């Protein structure tokens, strides 16, 4: 019996799909599983325990790095989102003009320039600034994170603005709203899901960054990812798995939260 032809049923698709899923999720499943390993190995299973979670929670260096990450990410995310919102408004609430494409590229530069280049450039410039000013606090990391977070915040905000009906803003102006009130009462509430998405993305990207942070950080300014990298160079224990598992759970929670928030706003 000849089966009816369908584009959804092609030879080998199931196999390829399975392969991709295994590639995506097997490492994560392994990682999470060994976080609960009772032994010190990340490859030999020795029974279930919460030992490494307790160890991580008691490790002051981990707590210190986590707090630092959780300081930088919201501040950098917030500044980047404000800048991205303004950039998105400026690049969508205008008739197309020559040079607009260049502006998009300019804003999205961090997506295109290899991160290592930016990292080295920042290292060189910031070391100069450190000498001049004598300041060596978290400001450098926050500034660097803000810069590379902007395109991640910009893209969802711009996408939202582009699908928004311009007539609504016109209607508000027609009903005696001054430009600022048009923005506050109409544009901003309608843009909110996009802004929220932009902030979440920026937050996660900042939390996750290794390369630029590694180059820019001063002594003693470990963030969670750079601390983990440092630890792995010595000995890999399931403590790393435990931290990663908490991280994973946190990001799933954040994404779920955002999903429900944006649905409610729509």
């Amino acid at each position, binding site marked *: 019996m000849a089966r009816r032809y369908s584009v959804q049923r092609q030879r080998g698709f199931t196999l390829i799909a399975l392969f991709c899923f295994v590639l995506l999720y097997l490492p994560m499943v392994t990682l999470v599983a060994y976080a609960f390993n009772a032994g010190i190995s990340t490859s030999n299973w020795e029974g279930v325990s919460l030992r490494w979670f307790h160890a991580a929670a008691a490790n002051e260096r981990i707590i210190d790095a986590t707090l630092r990450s959780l300081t930088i990410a919201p501040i950098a995310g917030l500044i980047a989102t404000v800048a991205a919102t303004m950039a998105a408004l400026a690049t969508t609430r205008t008739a197309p003009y020559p040079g607009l494409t260049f502006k998009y590229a300019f804003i999205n530069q961090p997506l295109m320039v290899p991160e290592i280049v930016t990292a080295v450039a920042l290292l060189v410039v910031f070391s100069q600034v450190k000498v001049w000013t004598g300041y060596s606090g978290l400001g450098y990391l926050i500034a660097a994170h803000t810069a590379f977070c902007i395109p991640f915040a910009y893209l969802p905000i711009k996408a939202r603005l582009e699908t928004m*009906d311009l*007539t*609504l803003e*016109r*209607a*508000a*102006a*027609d*009903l*005696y*709203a*001054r430009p600022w*009130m048009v923005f506050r*009462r*109409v544009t901003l*509430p*309608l843009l909110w899901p996009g802004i929220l998405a932009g902030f979440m993305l920026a937050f996660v990207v900042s939390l996750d960054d290794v390369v630029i942070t590694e180059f820019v950080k001063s002594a003693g300014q470990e963030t969670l990812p750079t601390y983990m990298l440092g630890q792995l160079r010595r000995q890999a224990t399931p403590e790393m798995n435990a931290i990663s598992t908490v991280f994973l759970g946190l990001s799933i929670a954040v994404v779920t939260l955002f999903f429900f928030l944006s649905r409610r*706003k729509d």
Partner: protein
Amino acid sequence: MAGANRGITDLTAGKIAIKARGITKVFHGAGNAAFKALDRVSVSIRENEFFTLLGPSGCGKTTLLRLIAGFEYPDEGEILLDGKDIALLTPHQRPVNTVFQSYALFPHMTVGENIGFGLEMLGKPRREIAARVDEMLRLVRMEALKDRRTSQISGGQQQRVALARALAPQPKVLLLDEPLSALDYKLRKEMQVELKRLQHETGITFIFVTHDQEEALTMSDRIAVMSGGSILQVGTPREIYDSPDKRFVADFIGEANFLPATVLSASGDAAKVALGAGAEIVAGLPHGERPDGKVTVMVRPEHAEIASGTSGATLAGTLESAVYLGTDTHLNVRLGDGSSFVVRRQNDRCTEAGFVPGMPIGVLIRDGAAQVLKY
């Protein structure tokens, strides 16, 4: 006799609400392409008037509306509102509100919040806003839906909310940009009546944009027919329909037959003209015009009759087809010179029409049934 019931437009009747003088608007497209949307347009719209801008798409009617609303600025000319030039004011500075084609209701606000928005922006006290919102909801018969989201109401209801929202701040002039085009036929008919009632009850000047000639004829106090960025004729629906002064106007509104003719003599607002086939009739003259020599006259299909015999007929020809339309029958007559002429005849149940294609037939055009065109 011709044009006796024409009622020449009296510009002194009623105060002027909006006066546009020499408005030119050019849009610059990609490259060097420039499009003249309005070309030295002047028009006066009276207070408490239902005024319609009628024309095909691209004629400039929406541009004129947007200039009055403040969404565009004219390249030349001035727009006077109560004698004050508002052409360069921003939309929020003008006591003019708009009902948009897409309604543009704020999706994140309730029906009540939408209606109160304009008053809130004007800084009115809370209690006054609440009272006025309720009054507006009553006016458009939507009291029950005050706390609904705008996405939870039907298209016809959204239309009413848009109207209430624009009327709530009591603007001097209400602008309506093809607001009925998204509604189905029955609802559209209903809203036509509703709009007329609202205009009557509020006493606000309505400027209505449409490409639908029937809508314009049924609702308007006066109509401005536009084409190619200019206003061709302004008048009451009856003036526009019965006495169009240009071929475009006659053609755009209703159906029309056009006949070549020669002016023999003119007196007052009527002229004796000789039709191509030889018959002489009395036709109306365009307001203030005295054309002579070769002209075109226009006859509406329902203003012509079928002659009982060919001897008393104004025009002679053969019947090409008779199309039964329920209320009327359209008789397509092929005239002697090869052109066609349509006569519209109202049907009744008693007489058998007895029209057979190919039969010789005479068309009778009574004195005053025809109109001489300017061009």
